[in-house]
């Protein structure tokens, strides 16, 4: 056993091993690894008692200590090399094939960054008075709200109106989330006896169970999986849906979100971003460079292959938001959707085009998908989104 090396943080201005270890822990934490004070201390302990010159041992030991999921596991080696050997990091986004150059992000409808900052401020304040005050100069108050509720989202371009709609979408999402996660308790009278409590009470009566206690029943909240079509034809609606989805997924632990166009991307991390503007930016970065026609069938196949096992169970509600325009095989779409329907509780397909006059689901993809959906509903304005609430609350 080699002698223990004194590990003081600073020694005559030299950077010692201990400070590098702490720096590494901090480096990983910035990259999203859940590392707290205890992990840092244990990392130091590890290095102090082991042979820190054995780089392999240090690598393996810190891997076991500092990783917390298979996503961390996969990123660790590259990050270890980047930090300790100063090798460059090649990619930020974990999307096969896509480049990750940050370009000027765009939000459907709004233009300059200045505008967006104001909008972000307004939204973050989330005060209805502020918004109403912002709407001064036009018809303020309830009537504007009502009109906005029924206006098709693709016709809204005015930034102030859009801000209003965003806020309403937020509230809708929060209400939906509340309805879905509320748990029912039937305390006084239930179907199952709580034997333990009953016996406790029976002691008072010499062992005779005179007072029965019933077990509280809890209805487990359903799980939500959202698949959003991000293709060009949907772009007029995407921003709103992202907003809506953010509101539902935020702090709703059992919700997962994906977007697809030519391929499928797992979104939930990007959406956990608190600032909705930043969330939309991250999404734009991830979806940039997506050319070509929508491949719904293939995207669903990717979902089934990589994620279904983990996220689908008998309590899951799958919500697909898409206009159904597909350049792939309709049979493939149908087959993949059938698989999803078999494993999930409900499959809901939201198509903004249903709200358009004269729309009929005759396009190949949409028609093929129809028999495998439990609910086929419009989603072109806030009214239609609000109409979903009772359906979801009942599930």
């Amino acid at each position: 056993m080699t002698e223990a090396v004194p590990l003081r943080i600073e020694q005559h201005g030299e950077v010692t091993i201990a400070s590098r270890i702490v720096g590494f822990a901090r480096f990983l934490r910035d990259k999203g690894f859940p590392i707290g004070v205890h992990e840092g201390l244990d990392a130091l302990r590890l290095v102090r008692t082991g042979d820190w010159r054995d780089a392999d041992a240090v690598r393996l030991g810190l891997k076991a200590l500092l990783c917390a999921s298979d996503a961390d596991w996969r990123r660790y080696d590259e990050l270890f090399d980047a930090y300790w050997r100063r090798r460059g990091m090649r990619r930020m986004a974990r999307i096969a094939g896509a480049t990750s150059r940050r370009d000027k992000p765009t939000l459907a409808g709004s233009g300059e960054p200045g505008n967006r900052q104001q909008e972000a401020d307004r939204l973050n304040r989330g005060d209805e008075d502020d918004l109403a005050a912002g709407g001064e100069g036009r018809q303020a108050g309830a009537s504007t709200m009502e009109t906005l509720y029924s206006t098709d989202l693709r016709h809204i371009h005015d930034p102030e109106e859009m801000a209003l709609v965003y806020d309403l979408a937020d509230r809708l999402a929060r209400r939906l989330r509340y309805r879905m996660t509320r748990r029912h308790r039937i305390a006084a009278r239930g179907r199952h006896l709580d034997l333990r409590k009953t016996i406790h009470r029976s002691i008072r009566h010499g062992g005779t169970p005179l007072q029965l206690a019933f077990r509280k029943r809890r209805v487990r909240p359903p799980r939500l999986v959202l698949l959003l079509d991000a293709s060009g034809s949907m772009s007029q609606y995407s921003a709103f849906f992202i907003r809506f989805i953010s509101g539902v997924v935020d702090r709703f632990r059992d919700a997962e979100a994906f977007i697809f166009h030519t391929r499928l991307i797992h979104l939930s991390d990007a959406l956990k971003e608190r600032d909705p503007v930043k969330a939309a930016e991250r999404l734009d970065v991830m979806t940039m460079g997506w050319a070509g026609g929508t491949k719904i069938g293939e995207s669903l196949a990717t979902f089934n292959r990589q994620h279904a096992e983990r996220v689908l169970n008998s309590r899951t509600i799958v919500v697909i938001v898409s206009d159904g325009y597909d350049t792939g095989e309709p049979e493939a779409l149908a087959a993949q959707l059938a698989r999803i329907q078999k494993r999930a509780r409900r499959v809901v397909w939201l198509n903004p085009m249903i709200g358009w006059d004269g729309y009929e689901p005759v396009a190949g993809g949409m028609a093929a998908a129809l028999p495998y959906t439990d609910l086929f509903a419009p989603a072109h304005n806030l009214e239609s989104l609000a109409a979903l609430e009772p359906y979801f609350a009942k599930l």
Partner: protein
Amino acid sequence: MEANRQILLKRLSAVGYVADSQLAMAVALMQQLRRPLLLEGEAGVGKTEVAKSLAAVLDAPLIRLQCYEGLDAQSAVYEWNYQRQLLAIKIWESEAVSAVEKEKHVFEEEFLLERPLLKAIKAETETVLLIDEVDRADEEFEAYLLEVLSDFQISIPEIGTIAARTIPLVVLTSNGTRELSDALRRRCLYHYVDYPAIDKELRIINTRMPGIEQHLAGQIAGFVSALRREDLVKKPGVAETLDWAAALVGLDIRDLRDAPEAVHESLMCLLKTREDSEAVSLEVVERLAGKVA
């Protein structure tokens, strides 16, 4: 440390578990830092085996808590023996003892049924506590578990707080059907158990079936590895590989190319869904067998 790890690898191999140095490091850290170990991976890769083998190597009793949906903290820790309690109450009915006395007597340790968590805490010698499939239990149970794993003490309202006499080595496994809480992940050391590479799987086959013909063993490892790369609904795990190897030996098949029909029929050991059985036809079997010959 290095020496310890090598010894651990040898001992694990001796009890039938083929580990890599990463896992050996995780186990060594478990003992040194006294943190639980979280093992994640697909079903059938050998997560539960790690705990069993560790218990065998350390010659410690294995205490197993199998998690399921609806498992509540109580059932994992203790249960009162209601029948005995009621009986005792009845027997004491005529005794001239106060109700308070009766109540005290009825809640003594002799009426307590110990469940895995309590057993692990009260053990006199070091134990290995396996909390299997922790993702099946719900968030409340996880929170309670976290508390127990931090303090290693359990409070029973009627008796008091019981502190651990020895700290068990805790191994948690998860199939990834539910996202575990950050707090639990942070508390644990982490190890992802993946499907083994061909050479590792070959070593596993040789460890578990010593004496198997090397030519066949190599073919089996190669075949299963190639099969996992196909588009299957349910990929075969290590347990399935070993079943299949035993089946092939039992059927007296020396080379996969010799009897493709028999091999195809024996695939029921590896493929457990109708879709997969239909997808892997005789032609696919012949193709894969040809590749690994």
